[in-house]
């Protein structure tokens, strides 16, 4: 092998070497440094138990959830090019995506991706339970996972309103009516009647949790804007942070679970 190919030549350039600080990952040293030296890969350990690699054991659901989350972020950002969260434009913009925006299929990918993420989160949880992986030392991480599950559902739920069609507002109307029944905090819930001094009503349809959620007494334009902000900024940020915590703890709690 005296002859040097172009590939070899490229590998010897300063540029290449400055980017990849290791040789081809075919031996132990390089395999270790490729994982440790890459910002994207280093959330993995360098080595892990064989069971942690097996699809039959992990079902890869956690990884897929994260990946779908990334895919949703990308498609979601692109959709923001064409979507305006106002009562005037929201519906027409969705029609635009359907009718004439090039590759408006982005919306389908986003919507089905959102459903897929709910499914993968559930199945991830199912697997974790079946393998008893929530047991010590991973109790806390299970708790983080439960919060992530709820946030995933909220992400999907807030996104459901954005097309601003009948399906959307009535699904949100049904959903938000439950908030109305929150004990003590919703005006239709038990105990709401107690929060009243004379004609000063502390929990009514214009100051209860549902009102806070919708920014009004009905699902209207303020709710659309609110849900849009929650959907695009607030919840994704929280989810992102919690995902980091979740991954960190997976590593710190001993990697992908396995029999003790």
């Amino acid at each position: 092998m005296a002859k040097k190919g172009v590939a070899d030549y490229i590998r010897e350039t300063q540029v290449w070497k400055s980017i990849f600080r290791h040789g081809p990952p075919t031996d132990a040293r390089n395999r270790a440094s490729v994982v440790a030296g890459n910002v994207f890969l280093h959330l993995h350990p360098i080595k892990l138990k064989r069971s942690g690699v097996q699809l039959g054991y992990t079902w890869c659901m956690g990884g897929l959830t994260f990946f779908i989350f990334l895919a949703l972020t990308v498609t979601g950002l692109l959709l923001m090019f064409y979507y305006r969260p106002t009562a005037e434009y929201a519906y027409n913009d969705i029609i635009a995506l359907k009718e004439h925006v090039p590759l408006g299929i982005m919306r389908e990918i986003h919507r089905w991706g959102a459903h897929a993420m709910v499914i993968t989160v559930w199945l991830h949880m199912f697997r974790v339970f079946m393998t008893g992986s929530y047991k010590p030392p991973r109790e806390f991480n299970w708790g983080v996972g439960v919060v992530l599950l709820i946030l995933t559902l909220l992400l999907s739920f807030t996104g459901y309103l954005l097309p601003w069609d009948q399906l959307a507002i009535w699904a949100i109307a049904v959903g938000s009516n439950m908030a109305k029944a929150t004990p003590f905090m919703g005006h239709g819930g038990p105990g709401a009647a107690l929060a009243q001094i004379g004609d000063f009503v502390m929990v009514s349809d214009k100051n209860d949790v549902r009102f806070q959620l919708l920014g009004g007494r009905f699902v209207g334009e303020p709710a659309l804007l609110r849900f849009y902000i929650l959907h695009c900024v607030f919840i994704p940020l929280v989810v992102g942070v919690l995902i980091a915590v979740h991954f960190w703890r997976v590593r710190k709690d001993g990697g992908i679970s396995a029999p003790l």
Partner: protein
Amino acid sequence: MKEFINYMADPIRSFPLMTIMYILMMKYYRIIGTKKFAVGALAVLLPIVTWFCLDDNFRAIIMWPDNIPINIIIILIGWLTWYSLYRCAQNDERIERGECPIEATPENREKVWTWPNLVYTELMCMIGVVVFLVVWAIVFKAPLEEPANPTWAPNPAKAPWYFLGLQEMLVYFDPWMAGVVLPGIIVVGLMAIPYIDTNPKGNGYFTIKERPLAMWMFMYGWLVLWIYLIIVGTFLRGPNWTFYGPFEFWDFHKVVSEYNVNLSEFMWIKWLNMPMPQNIVVREILGIILTVIYVCVLPVLSAKSKWGQKIIANTGQIRYYIFIFLLLGMTSLPIKMVLRWLFSLKYIIALPEWELNL
């Protein structure tokens, strides 16, 4: 035949049926968790599903784009449940023989390189999921209905599919229970699992034998009370949230006889033949007493039982009471369902004056 299936699909019948099937499944998981059984079940199920799909009404409901995730989840859960049982059965057999679970064999304990093993497989999973999403997006277009109209509600008005279990609960409970308390119990209960379940066994491998209580409870809540109710809410509830069999056309004018009576009305009028008391607490006294018994007395009593003593011995008092409280919360749903179907019972406690109905 189709009429019989329609008839059986009504939650009144299908819910107990599901419960029985669930019990059978957990009891005979050793038989179910074999490849032979899987092949057999597939051989039986495939023609049945094909036959189901030949029906226009059935196809219409399952092919509705927003219902596709539920089809997917049904398939995945069916398969993964079997697969878990299969792994459990395998492990439990080994454990009975005194061997370690498969996951704990030295071979599987051996450490392997993340690069390329894990990274590569993850990449392929990602590619797979992208392909899946793209094809899904091409084949099924996202629904878009009429523009939002606050003055006219579509019939049925459904929440997103993952909340349809909760919406189904609304049939049996008031919104504050179905929409707030029960979901709250689910979330708290889920978070509490690691702290209640102190059984050290079954950590990191599939097994039922070594952690039967946890398995039986979780699987019931997950498969029957959550997934099954979502399926009912999606496929079997039509206009006016009326029950429609899988082969039934969603006729808007379908009328169902449904007249429910409160427990207090049963007590005062039917049993005691008395007028309803003016004092609302007195009126609902039976319901209140029963609820107090359910929430406060039952845990204490159960703690005295042999079963309770055993758990307390393992976990301690506090854990036990939290556990029993969550368990009661979970079982309140099937209890209320059965009461509704058997006695047309509306509310155990009916205090609309305080927006407090149970």
